[in-house]
């Protein structure tokens, strides 16, 4: 795997209005890898993803897609190279799965060319590959959370982009469906050669599914690299402010973070109380 990068951020400064989010950030997204951006709430990870996908214009610095400034590239052209799945996307009521996945072809269509034979091939194939073919005629709003996310990933697949940015694809899903969605993301990489950048909340799932972790805090990247190399108790404490053990996941062999909180922390506190004098 070469370390080339089609998507780069250089000296990025992002803000919402006057509120700065991050400043001086550099990131090269390695081609053909799954990159997971992790960090506490409000650290700027979703904002970074929005800038990488051209939704947010940087106040300083630049995002380069294939060496071109992404904000000077036409939206349509960006949409043919880079797909985006926003956090909890909404579909209008009554929209069927097939309708949704068809919309993935939008950047390849025009008002006089709305449903070519190639569009139909790609959409049918995307539905089949994600296992949504049998649900194609179901309205999206009648599906379970996991199926819905599958439908959206199917749409992103039909868009036919090498790069795929996913903003918290597992939010609001139960454990089984989180794993289901991340397995699908893993297959996107393995079978379809997609480069994936996703924002994830769960550090352990990120360590299991991503080739590269980008750990952020307060609008800057604290560490970046393969999970086995960078995920240490010091990093977890530094990024999340949580004391933790990092052991080897007995199932996957990837790093597993065990936070020292809840009963573990209470036990530590009780130990401390017994040593101090009690006042009645």
């Amino acid at each position, binding site marked *: 795997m070469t370390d080339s990068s089609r998507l780069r951020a250089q000296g990025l400064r992002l803000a919402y209005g006057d509120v700065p989010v991050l400043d001086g950030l550099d990131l090269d997204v390695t081609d053909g890898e799954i990159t997971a951006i992790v960090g506490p709430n409000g650290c700027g990870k979703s904002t970074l993803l929005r800038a990488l996908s051209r*939704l947010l214009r940087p106040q300083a610095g630049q995002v380069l897609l294939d060496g071109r400034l992404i904000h000077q590239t036409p939206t*349509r052209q960006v949409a043919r190279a880079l797909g985006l799945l926003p956090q909890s996307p909404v579909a209008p009521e009554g929209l069927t799965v097939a309708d949704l996945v068809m919309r993935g072809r939008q950047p390849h269509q025009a008002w006089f060319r709305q449903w*070519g034979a190639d*569009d139909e091939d790609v959409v049918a194939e995307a539905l089949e*590959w994600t296992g949504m073919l049998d649900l194609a005629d179901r309205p999206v709003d009648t599906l379970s959370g996991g199926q819905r996310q599958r439908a959206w990933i199917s749409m992103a697949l039909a868009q036919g982009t090498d790069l795929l940015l996913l903003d918290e694809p597992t939010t609001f899903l139960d454990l089984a469906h989180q794993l289901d969605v991340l397995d699908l993301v893993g297959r996107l990489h393995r079978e379809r*050669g997609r480069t994936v950048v996703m924002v994830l909340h769960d550090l352990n799932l990120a360590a299991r599914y991503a080739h590269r972790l980008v750990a952020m805090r307060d609008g800057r990247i604290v560490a970046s690299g393969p999970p086995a190399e960078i995920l240490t108790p010091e990093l977890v404490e530094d990024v999340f402010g949580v004391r933790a053990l990092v052991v080897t996941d007995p199932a996957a062999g990837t790093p597993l973070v065990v936070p020292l909180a809840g009963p573990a922390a209470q036990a530590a506190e009780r130990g401390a109380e017994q040593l101090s004098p009690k006042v009645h």
Partner: protein
Amino acid sequence: MTTTPDAPAATTTGAAGTTTLARRRVPHAGLAPVRVGRVSGLVRLRAVLVGLLGLAGLCAAAVAGIGHGDYPMHPADVVDVLFGGGTKMDRYVVFDLRLPRVLTGALVGLALGLAGALTQTVARNALASPDVLGVTQGASVGAVAVVVLGGAGAAVSVPVAALLGALAAAVAVYALAWRRGVHGHRFILIGLAVGEVLSGLVSYLLVRAEIVDAAKATIWLNGSLSNRDWSSVRPLALSLCVLVPLALATSFPTRALQFGDDTARGLGVRLQRAQLVVLLAAVGLAAAATAAAGPIGFVAFLTPQVALRLVGGPKPPPLVSAVLGACLLVTADLVARTLTPHELPAGLVTAAVGAPYLLWLLTRTRRTS
């Protein structure tokens, strides 16, 4: 790394194992692909059916409308005259007296139905029709101002003043609602507020008007198709010749606008430009219609929602909405003329149908949420 559709996909097919070399088909119930050369589209079969039924209804209402009046004509005679037969008297009654009225009604209804479908789609809200967005009230201010203040020596005619008023109101609403694009609720609330201000202005003009002028203005404000001749059909038909194709061509990106802003942009839609162009076309249509017939309430609001429920699918179908709008207004005008000995304005009939529908829609939460 290419992403051709024939990349490895057979890995999931499992036991079935039927390696389909034939073209893959997307199972889309009720949709038919249409492909002619490089031109392609997907047609909703129910839209074709409803559209044809709407056209048939429009023709029936038009023939009945032409036949009705002080000089009644049998529908068969009307059709005969339309295809070149009949006496000189028949032809005079049909072509000079009654056809312009029915044609004005059909074109106004068509424009309003299409305009409503577009604004509701762009704002992603069933309440966002030109009635609600200040366009109608702007036209009213323009028209009433000319009638009341202008007198005989007015520099502009009533339709032109209505057109200018509608466009000015639309620009004001858009400018006030704009916040990196326009968004459903904010757009509607500002449209309502601007509309209220303009309605107040109309009341003020009526109060200080001469009684004769006030009566004339009130007739216009009720939205009527009576006494239309070819001079009101021609400018309307000409503006629709430009606006309808423009509206249909520019409405293509609205399919993606139904998703959130981020998703639409992610699909390569230039969001603000797409919204602005479609809204401009819709406002132009509504303004042209209001200039020709006065404010006809509820057609733009009602027909897209009826079309949506009849056809199904994720958004109001523009063409079917246009056909149903034409059918509704021509029918409403016929009802207005036959219901009572005194001729009612068509706008009253559409309001009588539309107001209960609005209440029903507001109390029914499923679609409006």
